[in-house]
């Protein structure tokens, strides 16, 4: 087609729309970097921001205590916040699309309950896995149960046909089952083990290490390209299941692999930092308001929004009570809710 397109006007308008979305996603990325710097610069020992930046760029310029604070505490915590935020948000975004349910989050189908049960077995009953180092035992248990619960869900849904409602109902059944099992373990637990378990389930970045970061980073790095590759198919799925299938998309396959990605992301995150609610629910909504549901922008937008919220929550968890590090899982909701409500109100005004 060499002649001038009769649709030049619409095409350039669409090009502008795409450019605006790219800018918004880039803006979220920049916001994430700023939030992360703040996160690194906040803490009980007052290091000036300039020292933090120069310390990251050239570690040798720091004295030993500052180096330990920045490289062994602040940096891993901050990176973990960003990674967990992005992973949970991506999991939530995919979940909301494939279940066609704006209230879905990675935890809707029992992933966190299953992880908590795994953690309970390790903590309270002292169960351990062979060939796993002791400090990886608990995350390994949490991961195994979270991942297995999604596989179980898939298997049950497969037996009964892969309708969305079936999946959600089985998921709810799993939530209740695992919650009951956790309660059972808690009932027989010692005072001390119970305390540990409750603290674990609150979600905290204080368990971050470079090795765990590496694992979660790797999982995210492997999963993201597959998610992006499925983005047009997921966009089409938003138009309805029959519609998507008549476009030639195998929805059952799309759903299966998407759930697999979701379970990997959510199970790994939960295993390392415990339950962190809200991010997986809210970040996709924020991205949807900002860039719409073309999944080429919606998925990256969700990830970055999740990373930003999680970073800000991490800053807040260090500053709300001076000198104390609150479990970040408590803070995510506290900081996320007002933000979320503000966004909903600002949208109402436009309509």
């Amino acid at each position: 087609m060499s002649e001038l397109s009769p649709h030049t006007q619409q095409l350039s308008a669409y090009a502008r729309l795409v450019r605006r979305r790219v800018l918004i996603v880039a803006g979220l990325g920049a916001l994430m970097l700023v939030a992360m710097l703040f996160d690194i610069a906040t803490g009980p020992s007052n290091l000036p921001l300039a020292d933090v930046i120069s310390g990251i760029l050239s570690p040798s310029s720091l004295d030993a205590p500052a180096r330990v604070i920045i490289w062994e505490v602040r940096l891993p915590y901050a990176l973990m916040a960003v990674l967990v935020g992005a992973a949970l948000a991506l999991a939530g975004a995919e979940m909301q699309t494939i279940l066609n349910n704006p209230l879905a989050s990675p935890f809707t189908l029992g992933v966190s309950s299953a992880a908590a049960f795994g953690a309970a077995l390790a903590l309270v009953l002292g169960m351990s896995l062979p060939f796993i180092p002791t400090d990886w035992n608990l995350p390994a248990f949490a991961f195994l149960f979270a991942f297995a619960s999604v596989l179980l869900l898939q298997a049950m849904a497969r037996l009964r046909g892969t309708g969305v409602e079936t999946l959600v109902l089985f998921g709810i059944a799993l939530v209740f089952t695992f919650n009951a099992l956790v309660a059972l373990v808690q009932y027989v637990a010692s005072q001390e083990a119970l305390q540990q378990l409750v603290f674990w389930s609150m979600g905290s970045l204080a368990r971050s290490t470079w090795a765990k970061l590496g694992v979660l980073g790797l999982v995210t790095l492997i999963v993201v390209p597959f998610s992006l590759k499925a983005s047009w198919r997921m966009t089409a799925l938003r138009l309805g299941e029959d519609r998507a299938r008549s476009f030639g998309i195998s929805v059952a396959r799309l759903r299966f692999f998407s759930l697999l990605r979701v379970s990997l992301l959510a199970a790994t995150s939960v295993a390392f930092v415990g339950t962190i609610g809200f991010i997986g629910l809210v970040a996709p909504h924020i991205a949807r308001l900002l860039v719409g549901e073309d999944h080429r922008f919606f998925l990256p937008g969700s990830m970055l929004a999740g990373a930003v919220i999680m970073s800000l929550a991490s800053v807040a968890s260090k500053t709300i009570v001076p000198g104390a590090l609150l479990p970040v899982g408590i803070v995510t909701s506290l900081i996320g809710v007002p933000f979320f409500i503000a966004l909903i109100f600002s949208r109402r005004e436009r309509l």
Partner: protein
Amino acid sequence: MGTPQLSIDGLSVGYGRRKIIENLSLPAISGGAVTALIGPNAAGKTTLLRALAGLVPAKGSIRLDDTELTALSVAGHARHVTYMPQALPQRVALTVFEATLSALMSARADAISTAEAHERALHALDRLGIADLALRGLDELSGGQRQLASLAQSIVREPTVLLLDEPTSALDIHHQLRVMQLVAELARERGIIVVIVLHDIAQAARYAQRIVLLEQGTIAADGSPDAAITPATLARVYKVEARVERCSHGTLQVIVDRAV
């Protein structure tokens, strides 16, 4: 290549144990014309259409020329057939253009370039007279506009078989007639097979060259509007007393007097 032919032989469709359609056969449906599926509620119209689209497992044979459609994968099916469901998506943050584009980009069997996809999508919107809505969100549209957007997602794929499930149910009278005219034009121009489920008997009589009247999963009448729509068939299938008359313009009119 002549006009395509769609033939249905010994087709049975059901959900679980409940059989909706049993052992249904139809003389071949030809391209270039509009075939309307009509019938009372629960006659199996939508089920038959979804079976033709490969969306429900079906026993028996559905052949498009020499291709057995029931043997094809979802993707293989979609190369020949496109289905427009009656239900429209709710609360979707996509523009009309993006939704149309996703019909081409999500499963690109014959790899077309992005620029070509953009052109084809806009062409389809133009054809339906909604090019000016291209960048409006689906959730900002009226019911009728949304139905036109949904139709655009179907015709943009340029299928050999176009299946439409009540595409005019949300439209005002002007848009109803425009859509029906357009569908008839598409059938003629491209020589494609159009099967359309309609509630409005008069509209079916006016725009379809062939009427298939369904009753409880079986064929109650099949033929030209004159042959299929008669007081006798309407009384039997719809349980109404009706007159079928030609108006001063010569078009078939159905005047329903009362339910019996």
